């Protein structure tokens, strides 16, 4: 598994996710500058990390979604290559057309950072193979605009095709209600693309990979990716 981590000005969790990938794959992934036109040769997985690209002064992810490197990412995805967008990365994937829908201001209009439970909705994907279906995992959230919205038709399609990756839940696995931190429709925390090769999610699995620092539930995602063998290189 060859991963590459994109870097836009204002992104700030690139090292967090690089650390998680290194832990899972044994290799430190290259960091790719936004102005580049090509991904490193042999890239299997592109990771768009969290942060505040371009300060999020325009719609979150709107400027990054149109950066040079995103043409290469779209081509990579079209070939079936894996793409993971976390937090601002999820917003960027929505803005770049790789995923449907949009992330709005949190329903209570406040930034929220805390440990958060998620329910794993399916495991037959390159991202979630090491989890069990319905497993409750604890990761962290840190966002001001994670309120997932899509039109009724899109939402129906996402649900119908089983493309919801994770839902917000409480410790016991009960979905929704007070466990939904931002007002997302259907308690959606992450979604897949049609071919299940692109995943966008608001929570940060990369910050829960160590028993000393909150727990290791985030590792499953990176271990799944590391264990997934396929070649999508151009």
């Amino acid at each position: 598994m060859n991963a590459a981590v994109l870097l836009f000005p204002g992104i700030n969790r690139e090292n967090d996710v690089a650390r998680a990938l290194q832990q899972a794959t044994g290799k430190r992934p290259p960091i790719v500058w936004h102005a580049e036109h090509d991904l490193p040769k042999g890239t299997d997985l592109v990771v768009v990390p969290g942060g505040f690209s371009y300060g999020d002064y325009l719609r979150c992810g709107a400027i990054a979604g149109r950066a040079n490197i995103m043409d290469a990412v779209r081509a990579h995805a079209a070939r079936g290559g894996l793409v993971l967008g976390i937090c601002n990365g999820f917003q960027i994937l929505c803005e770049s057309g790789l995923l449907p829908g949009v992330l709005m201001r949190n329903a209570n209009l406040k930034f929220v950072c805390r440990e958060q439970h998620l329910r794993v909705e399916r495991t037959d994907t390159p991202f979630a193979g090491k989890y069990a279906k319905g497993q409750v995992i604890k990761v962290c959230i840190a966002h001001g605009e994670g309120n997932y919205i899509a039109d009724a038709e899109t939402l129906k399609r996402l649900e119908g095709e089983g493309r919801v990756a994770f839902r917000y839940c409480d410790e016991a696995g009960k979905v929704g209600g007070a466990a939904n931190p931002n007002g997302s429709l259907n308690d959606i925390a992450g979604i897949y693309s049609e071919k299940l090769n692109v995943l966008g999610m608001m929570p940060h699995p990369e910050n829960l990979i160590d028993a000393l620092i909150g727990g290791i539930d985030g590792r499953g995602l990176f271990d799944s990716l590391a264990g997934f063998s396929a070649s999508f290189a151009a």
Partner: protein
Amino acid sequence: MPTNYGRDLLHKEPAITDALVAEHGLKPDEYQRILALIGRVPTFTELGIFSAMWNEHCSYKSSRLHLRGLPTKAPWVIQGPGENAGVIDIGDGDACIFKMESHNHPSFIEPYQGAATGVGGILRDVFTMGARPVACLNLLRFGSPDHPRTRHLLEGVVAGIGGYGNSFGVPTVGGSVNFDARYDGNILVNAMAVGIARTNEIFYAKATGVGRPIVYLGSKTGRDGIHGATMASAEFDDKSDEKRPTVQVGDPFSEKLLLEASLEIMANGCVIAIQDMGAAGLTSSAVEMGAKGDLGIELDLDMVPCRETGMTAYEMMLSESQERMLMVLDPEKEEQAEAIFRKWGLDFAIIGKTTDTLRFVVKHQGVVKADLPIKELGDQAPLYDRPHVASPKLPVIDAASVPPPVPHGQALLNLVGSPDQCSKRWVWEQYDHLILGNTVRQPGGDAAVIRLGDGPKGLALCTDVTQRYCEADPVEGGRQAVAEAWRNLTATGALPRALTDNLNFGNPERPEIMGQLVGCIKGIGEAALALDFPIVSGNVSLYNETQGRGILPTPSIGGVGVVADVARTVGIGFRSADEAIVLVGETTGWLGQSIYLRDVCGRAEGAPPPVDLDAERRNGDAVRSLIVQDLVKACHDLSDGGLALALAEMAMASGIGATVAQADSQIPVTGWLFGEDQGRYLVTCSEANVAHVVSFLRAQGVAAVLIGRTGGDVLALPDMQPVPVADLKRAHEAWLPAYVAGDGKSDGEGGR
């Protein structure tokens, strides 16, 4: 010609009158000092430069004399006060760089931007020295919850701190928030930043070499923040809202770029000297770089990147636009440095050079707007030995004379749900405290613990001050603030190494306020010396006063401790049932100035608890030793609310209850439960280890007594109906969200 007309306007400066001098915050005798120093009437631009350099905020003219006595040295101190931030050696070639700074005045006028730029400023101080920031903390003081402005200020400040730090990408891991009517007109926003660098890769402000280019980096200069430092050096009056335009606007995105670009050019060996443009912007950064290096500086303002057209020399010299730096670069690496800054989309301009004249010369469009002696601008700033009177000593309250107005169980529930003692989760959940994936001990405990890189080494960090003690007895309060920070770090298992202080006081021209400042500094110095806990950086904020009413004296302490192995630290929560609970330190039941006396009995009275620095040291060293030996399951220091509140906090953190009995019946039970005797801790340990733990402590000369055991889901204390932990937790978590939502009786808006 129109261009000439514009040029004339740009150079037409007002005549210097007494009124103009006064508007610049300079007293008549200070103006006489300027005349004597330069031998002529200053230009308007020069007057502005003097006002920027000689205000209280930049010159420390009221406090300098007293600050000189503080202990600032230790074998592990690399850089004490006087640079952008303090630097300590934390072993293995690593240095920790940190400082705390206030943004009180701007935050009161414009809470979001005031607080945001406070965070931005302190982060810049740290990365200017070559450090990558790894944590932020803060200490916030607001007016009474009933004051109509408090909720707005609280919401704005918290959002501003989060808005800046979250975007910049540094975890905000700790802080202190409370309320008092004495802050109604002057809130406190003290921000602390902590960074890490290699000990041999630290950068300083001192310029070297004649004829070297002075480089301007970062954002463009605008008209924001002009006279910000002067505003921060004056009392508020009823027209303070009109000062809103002097508050700067923060841009964390630019700051993040500035961080990355600065660290990149430092790593490439391009930088000779560097200074951030903070208070008094271009003026103070340029003067400082020259004066420290015994060099003159010549600036050509035509080269300064400006956000607006038609800015005058006066405006450029006094602008406090954020996210800017000044550097002296290695001339051979100038192109490389410029390419790095361009890559990050930041401005890069050569705006002057170093000279051998020891003059600070400012030119604009070919006209010399200022020509001043550079050393004297700093060195000859006024220095005052202001008259001061010691605060009168208050009587010691006899605990036996305090009848409990409500049952103890009710008192405990009231306290855990009171504005000052309630959970501050609503605050710290708005701060990204988990980014970097190194937050071992999250907000809500005694001190935060972060891992450095992949560990095992780490830092413990905290901010503390008990301002009601400081007002009741400034010397004792100063000692207590340092001791409490030291104790909070110790309670995690860390070795406290150094502190940064932020001295927030009222108008120093009043002898009683000056007396508080002098007393607190004395106490801080005594405790720092006794605890090997030197002061390596700091900030003074005076004139926190509105219409003659001063704040409580608030010398904030930011503490830094080193942890050899973060896996060996402990938190405050009980870990399991059947742990033995040991009370460490002497208990006398001291109720004077206690939270119980103030918030339960409605009596803010008496002398505060004295701090026995020898016992403090002995107790803390023994507790730390137990933690490092892995004999302790949980540890919590005793502070506000005494033993009962500490037990409640340990129970609430874990959901596990406890049963406790009073060991010494000589002490009135109210004092035993809620007294605030200093130098105390609660530790828990396994049943198997308790005899060893107690005998170890006693062998060190430390008072230690087994008072109970963990278990169950209620807190059962002597002379008290058992209180369910769930009830405590509900009360603890309820107050702040309800307050900000505007429910309940604490709503101060509307009817007033």
